[in-house]
Structures are given as C-alpha cells and as structure tokens.
C-alpha cells in the first residue's frame, strides 16, 4: 500500500516535470531515465539470473545502428526499425548465450566473453562502410516545427515522454518477471546453479532467456539513443566505458531489486550533473571528473552499502 502511494507520487512528479522544470533539467532527466531503463534491462540478466554482462553496450550499439542505418539508407520508419533492432540484438544474444552456456562458461569467464563480443563488434563496425565505419553515422536533422512521434523526430519533451514510458514499461515488466515462474527459476540459478540443475530446472534454457530478454530491452534503448542524439560512432557507442556506465546504476541502487536501477541512475546522473555544473561555475574544466565521481560513488557503496542504496531505504520506509 505504502509502496503503491509512493510509486504514484513518483509517477505524477515525473509526468509533470516538463511543465515545471527548465529545458536544461529535462535533458538531464532524459539521461537519468535512459540509464534507469538500460539499468533495469541489465538487472534482469545480472540481478535476477546472476549472469554478469560487462558488454551491454553491444546491444545498445546494435539497436542504435540497426534502426538508424535502416532509416538513413532505406527510409525505414523508426518504429519498424525498432523491430529489426530487437531481432538483431536477440540473435546476437542468443548466439553468445548459446556459446557460453553450452560450453559451461560462467562467472568471470562469461563476463570476459561479453566484453570480447562488444569489442569485436566495435572493431567490425569501425570497418563497416554501409553504416559509415569509423567516420560515424548521422541522422538527418531538419528544422523541427513540432513533434512527430511516428517519425521519432521532435522536441526534447517528446523524447522525455518516450523514455519515461520505456522506463515505466521496463519497471512493470521486471516486476512481472520477478513474480512469474521464470523469475523464480532465475532466482534459483542466481543463488546456486548446481542446486537448480539438481532440482531439474533447465538452467541452459532459462539463462539463455535472461540474456535474450535483457538484450532485446537494451536494444530499444539503442534506438532511442540513435534518434535522440542523431549521431553514432562505433568508438563511442560500443566502448567498454559505456557498458560500465550501464551497470553502475543497478549496482549502486541495489542489484536484483526493482527500484535499485531507477534510484541508482537518478542519484548518479543528477549528482554527476550537479558536480559538472558546480565545477564549471567555478570556472574550472576538469576532464574525466565524472569518471572519478562514478568511481568514488562505487567505492562508497561497495564499502558501506554492499547491497546498494535502495534496500536500507526500503527498510526505513517500511516497504
């Protein structure tokens, strides 16, 4: 009951935000919601099923490039491109998951494999002429008179509501998955894979499902990224730094929880932005400051709140 009231308050605040706050703050909120969304997607794989991916930028990049290239080269509308993007990401995820789980690669070695695939793909795209190779892929930006949701062209406010809807959808899906049979099996696999197997849970199938679902969701974020930023470079979108950014939110917020990825993304992005603003207000320019800040946050959480920020807050609120 309390949880429902708080959740409704949060929803109302987020829906009303663009009417209240400045355009600058809306753009900060877009980034925060973006990370809340991808964090939620990554959390399904790591937080629910216990499979560590350090290469989730792969699926962001694949989603972004698939939809953007189809749009730029063939005029395929973004919502159709989205379906293609999801299919491509799921195919990659299925291939990686199949290789890893069929041959019993797990733990750290699985994480290394996810990095390797993200890196292969980055290098591949650097030489992939059809999508602009290392010179990048640019979406045509025309003067916007209004918002066109079908073409995914419009004002930041439109993008704000798109990413808000995505984040809410990811939250609802995660919630449903957690209480479903498959969520139950994921929990068993995360807690003790051997035991799950001994009980007759098809660990191969459910681990694969976690990877594929997570990749599909992440690729949607990629499509959003492409149409919001309008330019894509393999060196940026597939970089391991991006993968790390994705996982910071859920880790700091609380792995395996529903609110953790949301809370973590907001705390990190809002604080990082405040820090950037504060430093530039002092007339300083410190490159890499955000990364240092992320590192400090991670250090503090790991040392003092190993389960993340959310669980103690949930206890305090008696949720």
């Amino acid at each position, binding site marked *: 009951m309390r949880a429902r009231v708080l959740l409704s308050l949060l929803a109302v605040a987020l829906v009303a935000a663009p009417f209240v706050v400045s355009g600058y703050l809306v753009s900060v909120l877009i980034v925060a919601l973006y990370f809340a969304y991808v964090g939620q997607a990554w959390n399904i794989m790591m937080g629910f099923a216990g499979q560590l991916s350090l290469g989730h930028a792969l699926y962001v990049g694949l989603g972004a490039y698939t939809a953007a290239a189809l749009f730029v080269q063939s005029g395929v509308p973004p919502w159709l491109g989205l379906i293609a993007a999801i299919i491509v990401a799921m195919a990659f995820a299925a291939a990686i998951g199949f290789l890893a789980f069929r041959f019993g690669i797990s733990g750290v070695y699985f994480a290394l494999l996810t990095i390797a695939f993200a890196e292969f793909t980055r290098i591949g795209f650097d030489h992939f002429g059809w999508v602009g190779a290392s010179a990048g892929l640019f979406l045509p930006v025309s003067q916007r008179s209004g918002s066109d949701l079908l073409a995914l062209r419009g004002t930041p406010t439109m993008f704000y509501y798109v990413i808000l809807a995505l984040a809410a959808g990811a939250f609802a899906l995660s919630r449903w998955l957690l209480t479903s049979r498959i969520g139950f099996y994921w929990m068993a696999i995360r*807690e003790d894979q051997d035991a799950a197997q001994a009980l007759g849970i098809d660990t191969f199938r459910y681990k694969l499902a976690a990877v594929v679902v997570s990749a599909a969701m992440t690729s949607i974020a990629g499509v959003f990224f492409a149409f919001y930023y309008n330019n894509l470079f393999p060196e940026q979108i597939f970089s391991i730094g991006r993968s790390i950014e994705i996982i910071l939110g859920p880790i700091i917020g609380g792995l395996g929880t529903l609110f953790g990825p949301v809370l973590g993304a907001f705390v990190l992005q809002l604080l990082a932005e405040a820090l950037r603003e504060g430093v530039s207000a002092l007339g300083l320019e410190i490159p890499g400051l955000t990364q240092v800040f992320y590192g400090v946050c991670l250090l503090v959480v790991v040392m003092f709140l190993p389960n993340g920020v959310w669980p103690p807050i949930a206890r305090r609120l008696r949720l």
Partner: protein
Amino acid sequence: MLRVEGLDLFYGDAQALDGVTFEVKEREIVAVVGANGAGKSSLIRTIHGMHRPRAGSIRFEGRDIVGQPSHRICELGIGQVAEGRQIFPSLTVLENLEMGAALRRARAQEKASLERVFGLFPRLAERRRQAAGTLSGGEQQMLAIGRCLMGCPRLVMFDEPSLGLAPIVVYDVFEVIRRLNREEGITVVLVEQNVAQSLRFADRGYVIENGRIVMEGSGPALLADDGIRRAYVGL
C-alpha cells in the same frame, strides 16, 4: 531399476571414474562407500547428467540416459540430494520447497507434496516463513531432502547426507531415509564416507577406490570383511 556399466569419466586428463559398474534394484537401499576423492560425487553427478562420461552406459528402467540433460533425467524420476545440502539460503523454507516442484511431473501434485513433506518434517512446517540460511545444519539437510521429494522422485541419490552433522542428527537423517524407502517405496542410492554406518543401513554396498569399484556385496558381508574394517572402519 538403475544399471551403470563400464562408466569412464575424465576431468581433462585426470580419470575420475574407471569402468564403474553397479546396479540398483527397485526399492533397494544401495550404499556406495569410499574415501574422500574416490569418485563418489562424480558418480552421482554423472548419473544426473552433470558430467558427460567418456565411455559406458547408464540405464534407468532400460532406457539409456547418457547425454541427457539434467532436467530430463529429473523428469524420469531420479532425484538428487547434493553434497553440502545446496539449499537457497536467502529464500524461505517454503520457497525452497516450492522450487523443488519445478518439474513437470511434480507441478500438479505441489500441494499434496507439500503436505507430505511437512508431515515428514514438522520442523519445516513450523519454520516455513524463515530464511533457509538460518536453519540448523540438520534442519537444512531435512529441507534439502524435502525439496527433493517435492519433485516426486522414485529414486533418490544422497550425496554424503551425514557430512558436517552431529552424530545424533546423522541418526535422524538415516532414519528419514529408511522411512522414505520403507513407507514410500523410494529407491535409495547412498553415497557416503561414513562407511560403517551406511553399510549397516544398506541392503547392498559397493566400495569405490580411485574411481574403481573394488568390492561389492550385502551390507553386513562387506562390514565383516577384514580389509574394509582395517581401511575404513578403524577396527
């Protein structure tokens, strides 16, 4: 019921099982005893589809199950209570038990199975809402057995159920296994380091050394064997 023939298992170049042959008849209690590292756990895990043998056959009710994935083997009615109990510590007792009913063959009977397990282990019923990690060692072992029963197995392989338990609790665990065998007709494969107690308890026994079955016979006969008494029982 279960027939293993000429089973060879390798971990890389190291041979863990060497031509293991043994048989379990319906409603029997068969003990496989041996020292640490003799290959007992490897044997159970191989039967359960967790390792792929290099050679040999495993037949369950006449059907070869080598190469089948674990969940299929479970569906056939072979359950396993793994070494070190392997309960899910952060889940409640009830959730642990529900997890045991993941098999298709067990889903319809989940309610009845739960009643049955709570009947066998009243302590688990009392503590159903408690996190499994907070149970005592003996209770955790009971939970592991109960969870296995939730899958409605007809044959259960117990891997060192006495490990790390106080003697009085070991006695209880063995008593439960005997009841399952007598009253519910569950066939039992018991793998143990606790040689004297398990041979006294089993209908038949096999002695495994360095991955090889070196002796077999009825429990009492093996117990009376001088070599075994010297090597394992310490008399």
